């Protein structure tokens, strides 16, 4: 039969790559039928929750459970003593350190878990917690990492030998009891040589403050030990369910095939839900001990005060250039505050993550980075909050240093960037600190961005505003924030990226059903990124079945192939690649089946959208649907029945999305209030799978950037008390505080990725924070500001204005 439908219509029907396919997830979420951890109810389910330390540093002298055990409904109160015989009172962290599950002799941060109360319901658990009597002996508190490196106060007594010597840590020698590691990248001597002899050199210290991913759903789990069959099922807010299964197996002694980890719907992750928390371990133990399911879901205060924070990097940058503005060297020194335990979620060889991307988008011939990790009396961590490992810190550093250098050179900061961008023909580009950037065309993107916002017009307007301000006609300054970032995502090549020894590949397993629909399972897990929608689009284009006929499943370790999970941007580069590769295996077998059905040689057919056609005779074809049935129906010599494939993808490199952002901001110098007048974001994420979803990711990432830059912090006082532990003080913007964003794009495919895609979820956050910050800094530049630390909340902006004499 001749086909009535055009090729274009056939492509459209697939809803494959490049179309703004509406999300399949939305049906359940808009009808209140999502399935999140706290929705899970099992027969006989118990509740567990923690007694937490009010002190940041104290000895735990005694824990009296007796009154708590009298509370009706309370079944058990677990302490470190109860977990010790199982070897579970401590657990390994993802950074090669170990962390107390329950306080073992002392506590190291406010809110640290001291005891786990298990009860029949939430009410009894809450009452039980109040009834546990803990006697503490307060110890001196260290909240400043610089102080900690000099202090006689030892935080980690477990890491000091009996004779007082300091054994090596997981990353090498340690120079002080409160020191964790020193990590270096690049060449110290040549870099310092250039810096010392440069025509122009500037140094600036900057603090990237401690903040927190704060997803709307807090962390939690339900642990259910089936004693009859010896199987443990663990539902939880896990961004990396397979890794959790392996870790739980290693620490509990239960073999992996007897552990099933399920990540159901997750209400946002942003890095907060990557690591293992005491609540997971205690729930598992409690379930094993009681033989009943145990649920633990933390409160928001628990989440903010004790789960993995982000950032807390004290950075000093030193940059040199010729008088014409060509950068010649960069040095960066960092003191990294990890809190009481190094629970950073980094690949094992990178204790400071990918901080060594700090040469940014610029062609810098020589560079050196040194990072010292330090223990303090704060919550352990840190994680990468909507960024690749430590990349927000790296990009902030370089995007600030370029502004500071522009001030020193008395140059326009946009022009200074342009002079120093890596050129298109230099890709793949070997950066001075080790990474090979895959592709980029920075100049095109920058020109497009600056034109779109009429950059020259903005500068002219700003100049007028400065005059008006000095003449007393206005009290509002205008800032133009610039940011050109290069992200490094898609961790990562197994040869240098592993977490706890697990290589950072990812996977996809596809099975085609006889009647032409399919199911694909991946080692990643969406927390809102829309994988069920977008990965079906990748497959639709690869295998020619409609996306609407493809179910995407993630998160159940019994069925999903092994993967390292989803943080913020690695899924498309790694699992997306695995999906494409598995799709190509399907297509390769489909080709053979088609050739058999059409009675021609394998090489005489070619793939066309949704079918295989005979070359030169397109009226002879077999659709993928027909081929699917044939796979189950025909006995084809040399070909097994069925149609399925699996791919484990070890990426040859990271991918390098980039972007150009411009922010126009007006600042009231008397009140410190900022208004974002305009925000333009151009993102290049390579091949674009679903433009609607990309735009949503950009909106979301920019809003989290706005929050971090303009006020969102985890602040401590001198006693280690958390000052911003509730949503009253931890700044989450409402719809009122957030502007409309203008989004734009260029497309520079990744040459090594099967579909050329780079990932986009993290980019707006990575590039957004320096953009908002630079807008503030830029507003005050005409009055002498070089750098002022974030967050730029009202009082700090006011203070900057005050120090510059703008209130006189």
């Amino acid at each position, binding site marked *: 039969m001749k086909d009535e439908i055009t090729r274009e219509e056939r492509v459209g029907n697939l809803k494959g790559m490049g179309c703004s396919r509406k999300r399949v997830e939305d049906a359940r979420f808009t009808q209140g039928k999502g399935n999140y951890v706290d929705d899970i109810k099992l027969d006989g389910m118990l509740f567990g929750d923690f007694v937490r330390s009010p002190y940041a540093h104290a000895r735990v002298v005694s824990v009296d459970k007796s009154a708590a055990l009298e509370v009706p409904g309370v079944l058990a109160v677990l302490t470190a003593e109860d977990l010790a015989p199982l070897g579970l009172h401590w657990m390994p962290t993802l950074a090669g350190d170990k962390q107390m599950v329950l306080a073992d002799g002392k506590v190291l941060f406010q809110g640290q878990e001291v005891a786990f109360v298990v009860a029949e319901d*939430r*009410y009894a*658990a*809450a*009452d039980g917690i*109040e009834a546990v009597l803990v006697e503490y002996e307060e110890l001196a508190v260290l909240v400043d990492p610089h102080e900690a490196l000099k202090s006689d106060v030892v935080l980690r007594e477990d890491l000091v030998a009996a004779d007082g010597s300091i054994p090596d840590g997981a990353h090498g020698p340690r120079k002080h009891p409160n020191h964790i590691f020193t990590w270096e990248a690049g060449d110290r001597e040549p870099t310092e040589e250039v810096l010392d002899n440069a025509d122009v050199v500037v140094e600036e210290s900057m603090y990237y403050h401690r903040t927190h991913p704060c997803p709307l759903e807090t962390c939690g789990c339900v642990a259910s030990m089936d004693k009859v069959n010896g199987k443990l099922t663990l539902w939880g807010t896990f961004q990396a369910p397979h890794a959790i299964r392996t870790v739980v197996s290693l620490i509990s002694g239960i073999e992996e095939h007897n552990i099933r980890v399920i990540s159901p719907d997750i209400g946002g992750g942003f890095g907060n839900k990557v690591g293992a928390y005491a609540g997971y371990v205690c729930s598992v133990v409690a379930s094993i001990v009681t033989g009943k399911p145990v649920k633990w879901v933390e*409160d928001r205060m628990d989440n903010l005060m004790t789960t993995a924070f982000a950032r807390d990097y004290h950075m000093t940058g030193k940059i040199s250039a010729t008088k014409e503005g060509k950068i010649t060297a960069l040095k960066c020194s960092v003191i990294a505050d990890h809190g009481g335990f190094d629970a950073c979620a980094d690949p094992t060889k990178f204790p400071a993550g990918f901080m060594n991307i700090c040469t940014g988008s610029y062609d810098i011939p020589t560079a050196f980075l040194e990072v010292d990790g330090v223990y303090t009396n704060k919550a352990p961590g840190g994680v990468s909050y909507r960024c690749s490992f430590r990349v927000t810190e790296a990009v902030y550093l370089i995007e600030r240093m370029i502004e500071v250098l522009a001030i020193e050179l008395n140059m326009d900061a946009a022009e200074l960037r342009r002079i120093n961008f890596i050129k298109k023909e230099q890709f793949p580009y070997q950066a001075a600190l080790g990474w090979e950037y895959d592709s980029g065309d920075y100049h095109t993107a920058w020109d497009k961005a600056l034109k779109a916002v009429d950059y020259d017009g903005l500068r002219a307007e700003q100049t007028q505003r400065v005059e008006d301000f000095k003449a007393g006609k206005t009290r509002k300054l205008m800032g133009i924030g610039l940011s050109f970032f290069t992200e490094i995502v898609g961790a990562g090549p197994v040869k240098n990226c592993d977490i706890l020894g697990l290589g950072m590949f990812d996977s996809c397993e596809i099975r085609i059903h006889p009647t032409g629909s399919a199911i694909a399972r991946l080692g990643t897990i969406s927390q809102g990124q829309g994988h069920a929608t977008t990965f079906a689009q990748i497959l639709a284009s690869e295998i020619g079945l409609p996306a609407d006929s493809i179910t995407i499943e993630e998160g159940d370790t019994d069925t999903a192939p092994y993967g390292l999970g989803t943080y913020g941007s690695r899924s498309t580069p790694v699992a997306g690649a695995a999906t494409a590769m598995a799709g190509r295996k399907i297509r390769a077998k489909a080709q053979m089946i088609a050739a058999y059905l059409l009675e021609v040689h394998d090489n005489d057919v070619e793939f066309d959208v949704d079918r295989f056609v005979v070359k030169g005779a397109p009226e002879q074809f077999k659709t993928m649907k027909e081929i699917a049935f044939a796979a189950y129906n025909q006995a084809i010599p040399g070909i097994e029945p069925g149609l399925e494939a699996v791919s484990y993808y070890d990426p040859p490199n990271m991918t390098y999305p980039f972007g150009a952002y411009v922010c126009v901001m007006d600042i009231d110098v*008397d*009140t*410190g*209030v900022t208004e974002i007048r305009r925000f333009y974001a151009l993102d290049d994420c390579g091949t674009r799978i679903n433009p609607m979803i990309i735009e949503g990711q950009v909106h979301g990432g920019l809003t989290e950037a706005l929050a971090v830059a303009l*006020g969102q912090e985890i*602040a401590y006082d001198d006693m280690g008390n958390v*000052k*911003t532990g509730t949503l*009253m*003080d931890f*700044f989450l*913007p*409402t719809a*009122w*505080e957030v502007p409309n964003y203008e989004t734009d794009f260029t497309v520079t495919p990744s040459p090594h990725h099967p579909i050329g895609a780079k990932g986009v979820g993290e980019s707006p956050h990575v590039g957004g924070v320096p953009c908002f910050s630079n807008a503030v800094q830029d507003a005050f530049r005409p009055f002498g500001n070089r750098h002022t630390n974030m967050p730029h*909340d*009202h*009082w700090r902006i*006011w*203070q900057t204005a*005050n120090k510059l004499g703008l*209130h006189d």
Partner: protein
Amino acid sequence: MIPAAFEYYRPKDMAGVLSILEEHGDDARVMAGGHSLIPMMKLRMANVPHLIDLQDVGGMSDITIGAERIEIGAMVTQHDIIGNAALTAAAPILREAALQISDPQVRYMGTVGGNIANGDPGNDMPGLMQCLDATFSVFGADGTRNIAARDFYEAAYVTAREDDEVLTHVTIPMPNGGFAYEKQKRKIGDYATAAAAVQITKEGGRCTSASVAMTNLSDTPVFSTAAGGSLVGTMVDDAALKAAVAAMLGDIDPTEDNRGPVAFKNHVAGIILRRAIERAWSRA
């Protein structure tokens, strides 16, 4: 998140309320909208063994606009304030302030009485009521007492209301002239970094009366007689504004917190007051 256990009462009249208060003393508290008390109970920062829900006690949900005064029942919500056209015509500052309290959901439940009686220095109604020279009526075993808003607040969470008295309504002398409620906050829904309530009258280009009250700049609202006084008789020019700000600064006593240091708060208080006066004056 889970409060301690408590006994719950829902009396039908004030006599019922009072008898529970009398029986349980300190251990009993009344609740209106619950949006100040319940969050404190959930954090176990407020211990209320006996909770008396006022929602079935009648006679406290009306807004009555007379010739010379306005009466607002304690159970009237912020949402009711915002939606009452007659009230807005008579005392527009109330709506302007109510719109700046918290968020839509909280405004549906939060009551005028709760906001006034709580004694939290961050609440907006106390300062506003002082600006308006309102009188609070509290009902106890000995009947009704009327207490001037300007005399009501003693310290944070400490007011002139006795534990066994219930705030039943607020009486506001009919305001006139220009009005403004100006509030700086870290984000919508937050308590004030600094807020100013101003009522001001003008005759022949000169200020004939001015009432100024400041919020969240001390452990109680601050009615600044001096600031209001410094505007009277002037044309509310730059000098007068500066004088009003200086006078006000002498009356407030802000403390440092997450919103910022003292110097910042003092400065912002001055800016906010200045803007409030200017806006009120333009409407006078």
